[in-house]
């Protein structure tokens, strides 16, 4: 129990050091938002794994905005960094799925052609 309290205090101290202003023009914010838009544009919502990370990214951006409003710029930066990482992961996961489907389509077409030939 004592250890838990110490952990919370440490966390609070750490978090307290996050106090500074951060505006919506800050690169961290712009980059995080841009990464989320990139994921939305390639329909990451339609791929379950990608959607999971996209939802996390959006949630974290909302949290960062709240922190920014409270003047917790440093913490907001770290949250935005994680949001960006999630959004970029969403983009890559969506791309991987779309490319997998393209490859499968081509393989199916090839199989069909070969089967026609055998027939």
């Amino acid at each position, binding site marked *: 129990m004592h*250890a*838990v309290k*110490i*952990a*919370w205090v*440490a*966390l*609070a101290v*750490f*978090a*307290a050091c*996050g*106090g500074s202003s951060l505006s919506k023009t800050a690169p961290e914010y712009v980059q995080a938002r841009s990464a989320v838009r990139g994921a939305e544009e390639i329909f990451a919502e339609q791929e379950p794994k990608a959607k999971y*990370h996209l939802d*996390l990214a959006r*949630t*974290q951006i909302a*949290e960062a905005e*709240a*922190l920014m409003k*409270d003047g*917790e710029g440093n*913490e907001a930066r*770290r*949250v935005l*960094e*994680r949001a960006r*990482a*999630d959004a*970029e*992961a969403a*983009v*890559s*996961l969506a*791309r*991987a799925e779309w*490319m*997998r489907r*393209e*490859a499968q*389509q*081509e*393989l199916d*077409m*090839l199989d069909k*052609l*070969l089967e026609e*030939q055998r027939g």
Partner: protein
Amino acid sequence: MRHVSTTWAMTGMVVLASCASDAASPQLNDARQEVAAARADETARYNPSGLRLAEESLARAEQAHENDPGSYGERHYAYLAHRKAVQARAEADVLRHKRERDEAKSQYGVVLERRVHRVEQSKDELERDLSVTERELERTRGELSETDQDLAAARRARAKSEKERQEALQSLYDLADVREDGKRVIVTFAGNVLFRSDESEILPSAHESLEKLADALEGYDGEEEIVIEGHTDARGPEAYNLTLSRRRAEAVKTFLVARGVLEDKVRAVGRGEADPIAPNDTAEGRANNRRVAITLPSEVYMSMRRR
């Protein structure tokens, strides 16, 4: 009011209960696991730079853990390391699937090209066969055309021959006595027109008449016979008259055969004085009895009727 990121809760943070030990945070464990998976699969092959970024983040997380196990820093960098490893593996999958797609496309193109080539070869063979067939068809058409021309020429010749035959027959009406007897025609030449008295050599003056008859009968090949009958009057011995009439009939036959009438279609018969057509007690009657009668087949008769 300070906020604590609720996403930590979503990622299952339990560090508060264990921060007293050196146990890695869940984020760090997750990151280690994900980076290890990236090292094991084809990420290193297809996306080495992405893997390196994930490993760098993991290294920072490990350092933070070493300095202060379970710290915010450890969890933050571990979180980033995990996401970067996920991203690196996904990008490697993109490249791998792209390669699979491109290889499948390329092979599809090769198979299709071979198929097209085979079809073109078949097409070339068919075109060659068609060309040969067309040449043969053209040659056959040429032969048919020649046959048509020959046929037309033969028809024209036949028509001409038929016309000439009819004209010849018609002219007989002027040169001899021509009677239609049912389906036959009997051409009767007076004896003194064809022969001198008691002779069986045809007079030159009779040649024209008999030649017209020969023209009408030339090439006749029907079933019925052309019958030449020689007749005399009743003066003199009967046996003599019979012989004379026979010789005269033979002479006419010989004349006709020499001018194209088929010999096996002509029969010469001597009747002597047996078939008079007039009384023998007058000079006129006797003259009428002295005759050569040629019976023409019905086919010849029919051609005359067509005039």
